[in-house]
């Protein structure tokens, strides 16, 4: 048997970090399963909560935005579907972002007691929110059928936008997760950011509503604008509004942020145990 040799030195970047990460994929699976199965323990509705919650949110949104605020739906698209598409992808981003940000601090007891590539913690949170998202997506499909809205070839682009949303949640979440270890202020800040984001992103409306304003060119710099519009566009047969320019911004910003966040996280992870 080949003897594995480990060298521990200050500041020594783990040469086999990515290989280690891959080797620990079972642990990733187990950590994710832990988070999934723990969540609805001792509840009566159990896993149906992950269906009930987005459904209830949608009902409230439809009521508030279409009946009271009278936001216009785009021609040919039922307003509830438009909102539900927006909520589905937004919830994925927001939950992923929130859970990833607190992933390291939530697992403080592990950080101080065992070694494993620390990226596993945000990754497992990301997996958990991905599972929630897939359930919500299924729900969307069912409701779309109720409205006799059958997606067409545009849906081929769906994985791209899902990947982008995943990347955005991971990039922002990872950055805040590393920061959160040292500065617990982050924990207070995140719900606020998510709340602001909900209105600043085209969740309950499409970007068409703000297209005419002079600040639109800044508005679409928000990577989530392109992602949400694009997600809706690919689900709703390309009928809803999509600014191609905003997708370019999304891709560019998400890739850069991912790169920055991962290197930030890696540079901080060795001192997590001292700060946590």
């Amino acid at each position, binding site marked *: 048997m080949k003897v594995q040799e*480990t*060298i*521990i030195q200050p500041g020594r970047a783990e040469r086999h970090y990515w290989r280690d990460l891959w080797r620990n994929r079972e642990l990733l699976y187990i950590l994710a399963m832990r988070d999934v199965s723990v969540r609805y323990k001792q509840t009566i509705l159990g896993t149906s909560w992950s269906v009930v919650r987005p459904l209830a949110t949608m009902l409230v949104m439809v009521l508030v935005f279409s009946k009271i605020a009278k936001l216009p739906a785009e021609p040919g698209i039922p307003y509830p579907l438009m909102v539900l598409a927006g909520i589905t992808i937004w919830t994925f981003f927001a939950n992923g972002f929130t859970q990833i940000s607190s992933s390291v601090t939530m697992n403080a007891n*592990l950080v101080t007691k065992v070694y494993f590539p620390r990226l596993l913690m945000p990754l497992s949170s990301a997996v958990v929110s991905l599972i929630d998202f897939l359930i919500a997506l299924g729900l969307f499909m069912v409701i779309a059928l109720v409205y006799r809205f059958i997606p067409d070839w545009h849906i081929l682009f769906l994985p791209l936008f899902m990947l982008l949303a995943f990347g955005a949640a991971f990039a922002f979440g990872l950055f805040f997760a590393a920061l959160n270890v040292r500065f617990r*202020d982050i924990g207070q800040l995140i719900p606020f950011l998510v709340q602001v984001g909900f209105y600043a992103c085209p969740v309950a409306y499409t970007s068409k509503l703000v297209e005419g304003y002079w600040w639109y060119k800044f508005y679409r710099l928000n990577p989530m604008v392109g992602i949400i519009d694009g997600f809706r566009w690919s689900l709703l047969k390309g009928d809803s509004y999509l600014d191609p320019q905003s997708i370019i911004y999304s891709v560019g910003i998400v890739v850069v942020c991912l790169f920055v966040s991962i290197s930030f996280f890696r540079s901080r992870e060795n001192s997590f145990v001292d700060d946590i």
Partner: protein
Amino acid sequence: MSVITVENISKQYIIDHQRSKGATTLRDALTQTGRKWFGRDTDANNQLEREEFWALRDVSFSVEQGDRVGIVGHNGAGKSTLLKVLSKIIEPTTGSVRIKGRVASLLEVGTGFHPELTGRENIFLNGSLLGMTRQEIKQQFDAIVDFAGVEKFLDTPVKRYSSGMYVRLGFAISAHLNPEIMIVDEVLAVGDAEFQKKSLGKMRDNSASGRTILFVSHNLTAVQALCNKTLFFEKGQLIEQGETNYVIQSYLNKISKTKLLREWATPEEAPGNDLVRIHRVELIPEYPDDLHHIDVRTPMRVRFEFWNRMERANLNLSLHLNSITGECIFNIGTQSLPYGKGLIGGECVIPGYFLNDGSYTISVMVVKDTVTPLFTLEDSLTFDVEDYREGIAWYGKWPGYVRPQIPFEMESLEIETLK
């Protein structure tokens, strides 16, 4: 072949005292950066309030394959920091470590156990955290459950477990790890006596199969039973290493906070009041051998002397022997008799084979007319009673406050003959 080579490992922490600039909240961090950028940096003041603390300092040693190495030292001596460095949890400030083989660290029993998950789920969770593959866990599953004795509760959330079951399950998982090097911190301090014995036996079996073990414990008896080599740490430094019995002896000599004599030459400086003042209190052990430390066998005398400043009073001395945690083991008083002004003294004999191993303090109280305490000298003496056993293969903590050798016998009453 040395499997672990540690060279000049140090770990430094910066302790920020109050009002210092070590940013702990975002606001601090922002104002700090602001000051730096706008040139209103007051670093000079704050530098003074930062203090360096070396949790480990220039530690070097090497461990051969199959060694069972005990690590002893006070709390805060750096033992746990060392284990964490070896487990890759903490990054050292300087130095390097070379480890050959797979390491399993057991710094806590039941690491990562989630209270809501069942025993079965937690076995997989904890096992993978400790570095086992699912395949390995499946193979060992029955053995783990059997060792822990929790068959009936496998599908119960561990939050419903008794603390004993929880600990047994945690240890059982780690005992079935199969690494070349095992790092163990204080796990024997938990669980009941029977389970401790089982755990220690399991660890010895492991080492018999050529496994290297690093073992931190406050239980010197367990270290002596298990380890062939021992490292002794103090204030982050490795001050002694070598053969276990030798190192433990020097550790015992060094750590004893023992205060066997308190004496004040004149009444003016002595503690007390206008009525009585303490002159001296002394504990005189009668050592059984030339190792000068008190163990459970050692008889002791407590000698006391105090000044009586009153013309004539009925006095007695009340002696409290307390455990270090403050419980009174016993209280004994002399007879109350009339004494005149002057020095009064007396002695109490504590027989051998009476106190259990542990740390104790002695307080003395002068009482007038058997009801009025005149003066109490709290914790005047402090001493440790070490463990000592003969012909007993069990090394767990002996329970109880006292360990008397009172007559206790057993005999065979009837022999069943084979027909």
